[in-house]
């Protein structure tokens, strides 16, 4: 066939697009206002594609369980974990985290786990959402 792609292109015209339009189907005029509306319950968000089981998202930290052994600090490839000397607990800066979940594997008391939360972008790397302690 001379132009093998041609049939495919015509077929594609009648297919639904693959892209999941997240967070809105059409670009809102004012994104900040749209997000405020969503928070107020006036607008509805187009849901994202579901994350699979075992997804590596934001780290959850169980403060009570932690024994302060510093193993996670030793294996963290990005140096995202800080040790608080006084309390013998850790502080994780998610802005530096590469989400490899190596700290989860090494923890002897399993006080760290990965959630499926992935909407973590922020203008301020030290914002409250991006520090786990």
């Amino acid at each position, binding site marked *: 066939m001379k*132009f*093998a792609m041609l049939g*495919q292109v015509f077929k594609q015209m009648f297919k639904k697009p693959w892209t999941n339009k997240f967070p809105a189907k059409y670009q809102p005029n004012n994104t900040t206002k749209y997000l405020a509306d969503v928070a107020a319950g006036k607008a509805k968000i187009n849901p994202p594609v579901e994350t699979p*089981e075992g*997804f590596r998202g934001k780290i959850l930290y169980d403060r009570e369980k932690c024994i302060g052994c510093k*193993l996670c600090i030793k*294996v963290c*490839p990005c140096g995202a974990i800080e040790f608080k000397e006084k309390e013998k607990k850790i502080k994780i800066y998610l802005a530096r985290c590469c989400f*490899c979940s190596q700290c989860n*594997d090494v923890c002897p008391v399993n006080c760290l786990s990965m959630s499926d939360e992935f909407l973590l972008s922020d203008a301020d790397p030290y914002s409250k959402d991006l520090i786990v302690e």
Partner: protein
Amino acid sequence: MSKELKKTTYQIPIGPIHPALKEPVMFKFEIDGEKIVDVDVELGQVHRAIEWTGMRRNSIQIIYLAERICGICSFVHPLAFCRAVENACEIDVPERSDYIRVVHGELERICSHLLWAGVAAHEIGFDSLLFLTWEVREKALDLVEYLTGNRITKAILTIGGVRRDIKKEHHQKIKETMDALKEGYKQLGHIFLDDKTVKMRSQGCGVLSYEDALRLCAVGPTTRASGVKKDVRADQPYTAYGDIGVDYMTPDIITGEVNGDVYDRIIVRLLEVKQSIDLIEKAIDQMPAGDLVSEPKIPKLLSRIKKTKGEGVGRDEAPRGEVIHYVKFDGEHDEPFTWKVRASTYANILPWIPMLKGEQIADIPIVAASIDPCMSCTNRVAVVNNLDNKKYMLNKEHLHELSIMKTRRLKHK
């Protein structure tokens, strides 16, 4: 006045940053009309000091650093590093994790080759084919995300095994994806091999002869497209490739002849996608039961690596060709004494010169893209611009000279 006009060639530089080239690399072309007479490649436009950084981290941390050497080869680089450390410390890998390593390695090859096929289609101005190719690739990426937790940076490897198992409940999705990929392969194979547009631009273009491929030590699909049977998976089987069996993919399987042009490189990569699907299916079928890692306790593993004095080499077949990692431990520190990476594009740079000679200017993007270059994986030497805009390389002798000069300066103070 009868002054004879002499035909001269002129130069055009392309790069270091150019829209047709995805990564910084500098070409200096000697042009006669539309024809390329000579070409010079200047590397060293992007240097990230990854090895230097790695020499200040322990081996577990380096796995994730190695993953970021290349965004597309995010499995083969850590695999080569892990194999180098396993070689140095004589750590055995359980059989089951060898098979899981094959599955992930081949999934990466599928993703990489489909990505390349899309980019190649884009370089010849065939953007509808780019989107069709990447739609197929998306299915493979979804499977990667399902098995490892992320789409690109898999974080699946560890020294002495793998971190996540392929369980019984995963088999259904793997089978579905493999069926979808087979369907996609058929569709893409038909378009790439039969479409007139692709044929017009790729046949007889960017030819690398068998002799040149051998002489210049090309690796991966670039050399196999010229008929050289070279594949680490078959030559020196690692992980479970020896049990499963790998064949060399050369373009004569489909066309019956070897030309070594861009079209042949497309054929080789498509054949390898098919081969990878078969290998994944075989690996899933033959996977034995057993442990995932030989040493689950990471502190114990790290102390063993710390006590090791010696060196190790890990090599494997990346989608672009052979990757070699070399590590040396001094027996006192957690950090390796030396870590050297040779990415596959490094061996595929020189073949660019015979490929580009005699081609037209408009063929530069597709010929340059045909080796699937990955510049930031390759660059190793820092090029520094000093004040009078003269470039010089910072090599060992020069640094030594600078050091002597500084000592003298301090003495005279």
